């Protein structure tokens, strides 16, 4: 018998990932026990099984799919509009000092007010329909994308441009062969932040003014005092947010592979 085996504890050790489940499991256990003995009224803390069945119900009657679909569509539309505008503005400010001088102060002032602050303003301006949601989400994505694109282009080492000059690149060639590819990693960081902000903005605007979507499920559950529905909606919001960020992370890694070579 070797020493390592002798020193091993007498109980089978948990696999490395196992410990991470201990705490949630313990919490879940405590939650179930509490629900079973009625330590807290179900209006305050419904049993975990009820949250599960509420989620199943929402899934089965199609409410979940339709609301999540609406939310996702809004985020995609708003993010596309906001990140595209942000990219263009960031590129303009990054390439031209003149553009930076003119735009940057106003942009900074605009970015200073949190997205949440713009919502009531936009509500008065465009009403509480679909344009409101798209505008709010677009604003949320726009700021980090513009900032990171700007900073990314400015951070391109001047040596790269000198190499381009040696090759007698035209301005356009310099831009799309040298500057933009070199700025891809920071731009992508901006896009990733932008998507996270867009998702948070979606939740905000759906909580404040919506009759459908995942945020509305929360409001609805709150009004009905259906905590199981609310908690289910929170779980879905978390999972979708996580999923969106993962997608961006995977794309980010793929785009950066050339750096290693």
């Amino acid at each position, binding site marked *: 018998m070797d020493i390592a085996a002798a020193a091993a504890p007498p109980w089978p050790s948990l696999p*490395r990932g196992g*410990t*991470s*489940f*201990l*705490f*949630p499991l313990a*919490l879940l256990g405590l939650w179930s026990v509490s629900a079973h003995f009625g330590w807290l009224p179900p*209006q*305050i803390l419904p049993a975990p099984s009820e949250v599960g069945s509420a989620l199943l119900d929402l899934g089965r009657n199609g409410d979940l799919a339709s609301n999540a679909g609406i939310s996702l569509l809004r985020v995609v539309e708003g993010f596309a509009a906001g990140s595209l505008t942000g990219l263009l503005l960031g590129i303009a400010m990054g390439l031209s000092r*003149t553009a930076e*001088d*003119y*735009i*940057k*102060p*106003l942009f900074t*002032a605009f970015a*200073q*007010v*949190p997205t*949440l*602050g*713009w919502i*009531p*303003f936009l*509500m*008065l*301006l465009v009403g509480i329909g679909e344009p409101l949601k798209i505008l709010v989400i677009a604003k949320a994505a726009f700021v980090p994308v513009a900032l990171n694109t700007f900073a990314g282009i400015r951070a391109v080492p001047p040596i790269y441009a000198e190499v381009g000059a040696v090759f007698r690149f035209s301005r356009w060639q310099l831009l799309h062969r040298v500057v933009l590819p070199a700025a891809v990693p920071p731009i992508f960081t901006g896009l990733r932040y932008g998507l996270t902000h867009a*998702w*948070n903005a979606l*939740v*905000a605007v759906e*909580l*404040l003014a919506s009759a459908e979507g995942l*945020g509305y499920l*929360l*409001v609805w*559950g*709150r009004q009905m*005092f259906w*905590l199981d529905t*609310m*908690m289910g*909606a*929170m*779980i879905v*919001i*978390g*999972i979708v*947010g*996580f999923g969106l960020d993962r997608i961006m992370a995977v794309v980010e890694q793929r785009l950066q592979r050339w750096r290693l070579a």
Partner: protein
Amino acid sequence: MKRLLRGVALPIGLLAVWEIVCRARLVDPRILPPLEQVARTAVDQVVHEGLLYHLAASLMRDVAGFAIGSGIGIAIGTLLGLSRLADRLFMPSFNGLRQIAILAWIPLISIWFGVGEAAKIIFIAAAALIPVVLNTYEGMRAASGQLEEVARTLRFTRWQLVTRLYLPSALPSIATGVHLGLIYAWVASIGSEYFMTVGPGIGGLIIAGRERFQMDLVILGILILGLVGLAINLGASAIEARLMRWKPG
């Protein structure tokens, strides 16, 4: 000088267009009130409606929530960063929970803790806590192995290790987290006032402005939000720079 002129060109142009559009009555003044009306509302709010009282209420809430959240955040981040066991037990759960957009907690918090001051401060504290925990954790993790060896040679006690080695070396990262926490706390203060519309506050003022269709009030609120955000940012950067003075380079 040239840069300054260029910088103010767009904002001034925007204000001019605003003024012209209002003077020519091209838009409904309820949608876009004239500049002087916003100014009048500002004065009126300060003098008669207790704007400063609302602002103070928001700031107090912000500071209270931030202090609680960042304090607990540094403690949790230190524990998770220094103890392998705590890291493996709790970090995955923390990472899971923080995936839920912070505003999505508001309905639940309002059922659990009501819509009063306590609920708002709990929400603000939770918002400030997240970036502080993450950055403290990262900072603790990044302490240099060489310094750890030095500390071992000097036979540091556990307490000395934490106060002399880990905390100082994590300080830049903690400062980043606290800075983010300040920003998050301010946004969360506004959010809490939007959804728990009891009691004074700038967020409540903006929501009231929207409900009464008073665009001037909403615009005033936005201006205040931006100014306070700016002040918080500048203040945090200044403190950060001071704390980091000892760092070479």
